[in-house]
């Protein structure tokens, strides 16, 4: 029987810089910051060999890009929240893992490439996550982009390729998704002390998703991804992909101990820090509507088949 990759736990966390740069401007930001720090302690105690990050604020176009610079170093400033301050960073990246992940992507039909350039602009979400979860670089990390055109099949396969790489290198991995829940922010500047979720509808949907997370129903959330996108995601990209990637990477089931450590507003969007630890118990798998995918076949040359 095939050995399973050793994924110690998964973390879902928000990309906004407030927990990093201004945690005391709102009690909710502080709760998020404290939850990041709890996750950091658990990562340090876990014996993990690698932290693998999928960031929704790193969009790619040419396939799936994987950070491979051994020590990316820069000072980043957020496009919207530049007035909160700069984010200097210096990360330790597992280049060997990055290369393996790229190879595993290619074996599953994905177009993928590593990036290793001085000054490459690592995104706000990845920086916030790695600076708070792994501030001393005790554990090597790797970051993968979110292709702006990718949909479900491609993202599921990207997650499976991550599993392949983790298994192949016999790593003990913590996997991290950087994403909001509802992502509609206020379109004007606000007093941070008055921050709240943008609308009651967003708040209700977020709480329903958090119920699922709390029950460890990750695969169910993955199956609901299109509904979530339609209901509470501003349509910057074609789909809500982080749940697909996280579920596919962690094994496509509902067998987790889910912990919602914090749920707070970040300039109107829904920010949550969640941990999912694989367990024996399960609420059981539900009836799933969409096919599983093992290999990505691209656009199948739909436009060149002269079907019109």
């Amino acid at each position, binding site marked *: 029987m095939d050995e399973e990759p050793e994924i110690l736990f998964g973390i879902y966390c928000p990309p906004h810089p407030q927990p990093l740069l201004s945690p005391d401007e709102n009690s909710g930001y502080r709760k998020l910051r404290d939850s990041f720090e709890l996750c950091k302690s658990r990562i340090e105690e876990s014996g993990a060999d690698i932290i693998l990050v999928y960031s929704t604020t*790193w*969009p*790619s*176009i*040419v*396939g799936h890009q994987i950070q491979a610079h051994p020590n990316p170093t820069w*000072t*980043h*400033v957020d*496009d*919207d929240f*530049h*007035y909160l*301050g*700069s984010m200097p960073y210096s990360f330790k990246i597992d280049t060997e893992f990055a290369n393996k992940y790229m190879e595993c992507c290619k074996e599953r039909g994905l*177009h993928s490439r590593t*990036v290793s*350039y*001085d*000054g*490459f*602009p690592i*995104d706000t979400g990845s920086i916030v996550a790695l600076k708070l979860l792994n501030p001393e670089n005790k554990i090597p990390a790797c970051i993968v982009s979110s*292709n702006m*055109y990718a949909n479900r099949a491609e993202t599921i396969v990207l997650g499976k390729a991550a599993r392949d790489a983790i298994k192949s290198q016999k790593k003990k991995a913590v996997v991290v998704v950087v994403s909001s829940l509802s992502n*509609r*922010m*206020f*379109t*004007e*500047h606000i007093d941070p002390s008055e921050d709240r979720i943008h609308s009651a509808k967003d708040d209700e949907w977020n709480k329903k998703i958090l119920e699922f997370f709390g029950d460890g129903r990750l695969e169910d959330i993955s199956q609901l991804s299109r509904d979530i996108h339609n209901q509470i995601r*501003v*349509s*910057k990209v074609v789909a809500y992909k982080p749940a697909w990637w996280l579920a596919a990477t962690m094994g496509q089931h509902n067998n987790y101990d889910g912990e919602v450590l914090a749920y707070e507003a970040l*300039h109107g969007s829904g920010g949550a820090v969640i941990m999912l630890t694989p367990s024996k118990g399960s609420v059981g798998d539900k009836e799933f509507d969409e096919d599983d995918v093992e290999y990505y076949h691209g656009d199948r040359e739909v*436009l060149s088949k002269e079907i019109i």
Partner: protein
Amino acid sequence: MSKGEIVLGCLAPHPPHVVYAENPEQNEAFAEGGWETLRWGYHRLARKLKNIDYDAMVIFTPHWQTYIGTHFLGLPKFKSKSVDPVFPNLFRYNYDISVDVDLAEEMRSAAAEAGIITKMMRNPDFRVDYGTITSCHMLNPEWDKPIVTISSNRNAHYYSAEVMNEQAGALGEACAKAIENSGKKVVLISSHSLSHRHFVTESPLPEDMSREHIYNHSQYVWDMKLVELMREGKMREVIDIIPEFTEQTIAETEAGGLTWMMAAMGFPEFSAEIYGYQSVIGTGNLIAAWDPNSKTREIVL
């Protein structure tokens, strides 16, 4: 003080490929050429600009994306390296940019008075986006004029392309008022492609022109429709159909640049000067200019 004026409006697409293909000393990557139709068009327009008297370039960029209002660069100097997040293999450009902060402040104030949410960007570590750098480099490789970069507020994401059109138009009118009050002569730059569907793979040699073509014919037909209207001087009509064009071709007009520039110029009824059209990694790119001075206005292509 005499009234300020807009002396030229330029549609200046920013695929980093064109800078890459030029091999300027500021860029670390090396190319064997490529995308000559666009580059030669840019050279022609850059030569025209050399004969125009102006004080500053004001550029509206899709690659400084803001969701909380419209932001303006607000420090006099920015010096750093810009690495394209999508094409880092092509674009790693060391820049040293001067900003006309007074003009930026005036435009910001005028926009705020018009009810638009605004913010000055004063963080010295801020990295100027590659859209600004690409368009400005191609139009003025000497970088001997100050610029103002305006962020693109993503109304099309939050609301609709129609709302984007309204808001970008209001911003354009406010900027025009500020320019008039400033007494300065200003070149406006709307930095973007037309149709904007990319290929998701790249050829081993990115400048291999045997691999370059528009993503699909529908994109091309739409792009040509816009070029035709521009030639006919029907810019109000162009802006009226921008929401549909944007939706049909995933166009980069979604950021509002063209609408902003046309509103600032009062929706020209004279012909646009067409300098070149070419696809870059599947997207449709047009270089065009609107010259309010009938004595220097030309038929280029």
